[in-house]
């Protein structure tokens, strides 16, 4: 139920962006894949973090941590940097195939890739940071990160996802690239 709150916040944010969505036809196509990507990567990451904390292969501190910690974090960053490129491309292909936007057309390939890539990296980085902070904090208090981190990730996930896509889209419009 709590995670529904986060999604409702995401929905509220989405509802305020009808103008942006109308200006960038096809933008909506990007939302579900970027959310799914972020959710999948977050889930795997938080599970590995919590296991590593329990096993002691990771220290419950933000700085000067083990190489396992660094490798896991780098791995997340690599994934959220690469996958969105494919998302952008595929979203473009599907939009073209189904003639999204009709006569006025839809976002260009560059547009899809730009927005997907930057919001993908941004949301992935934010979510990873939150996951790390919450995992370390709960572990330090003697709680089980698995139990606390999951609901928080679910609740904030959708909201962070929508926020980053909206933010990046606004930047893209303002900068006049599209």
């Amino acid at each position, binding site marked *: *139920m709590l*995670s*529904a709150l986060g*999604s*409702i916040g*995401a*929905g*509220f944010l*989405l*509802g*305020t962006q*009808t103008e942006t*969505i109308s200006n960038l*036809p*096809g*933008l*909506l*196509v*990007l*939302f*579900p*894949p970027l*959310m*799914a*990507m972020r*959710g*999948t*990567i977050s*889930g*795997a990451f938080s*599970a*590995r973090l919590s296991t590593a904390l329990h096993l002691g292969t990771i220290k419950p501190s933000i700085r000067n941590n083990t190489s396992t910690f660094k*490798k*896991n974090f780098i*791995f997340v960053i*690599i*994934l959220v940097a690469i*996958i969105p490129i*494919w*998302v952008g491309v*595929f*979203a473009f292909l*599907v*939009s073209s195939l*189904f003639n*999204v936007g009709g006569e006025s057309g839809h976002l260009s390939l560059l547009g899809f890739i730009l927005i997907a890539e930057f919001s993908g990296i941004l949301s992935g980085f934010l979510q990873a940071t939150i996951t790390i902070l919450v995992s370390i904090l709960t572990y330090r208090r003697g709680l089980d990160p698995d139990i606390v981190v999951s609901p928080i990730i*679910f609740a904030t996930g*959708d909201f962070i996802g*929508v926020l980053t896509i909206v933010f990046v889209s606004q930047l893209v419009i303002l900068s006049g690239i599209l």
Partner: protein
Amino acid sequence: MKIRRAMLESVPVLMLVTCISVFTGFILNTTFSLGDIIGILVMTPALLSTGGNVGTSYGARITTSLHSGLIEPRFKRVRMIYINFFAIYITGILVTVLIGFVGFFISILIGPPTLSLAQYIILAVSAGAIDFIIVLFLSLSTAFISFRHGLDPDNIVAPIVTTLADLIGICSIYLILNLII
């Protein structure tokens, strides 16, 4: 290298999940193009994520029962299977009522109201009613299949179930919109 292997394991699931989701996005886009029903946009993330929660909670319970030997991975009329089915279904429907309420009030905040409170609730509940039945069956089948093949529930099954739940969810919303409005 352990990390490289872990990375390689995630990639297939990620590719599958993102590909399916692009189609979900396409239907979302089409739904929005039907008309400026802002409230639908507001309710969509909540409805989709509730569908995902319904699927994964049921999936988790079935998987636990499978692992503890309480049930077999076959479609038999077993109490565990159908009682949980209905319990989670009802809980999900209750959440959609809430979503309907919140959707209505948020849409008033954002702009001029287009639909009535009753219409919001009916939309949310109807979409959920169709969505959850399909998602629950899917979740049950997925739990059986993944149990038989020894697939990882957290990293493979959960993302697939939530992604399919998103797709079914947006289709339900689209369907209900076309039927009711």
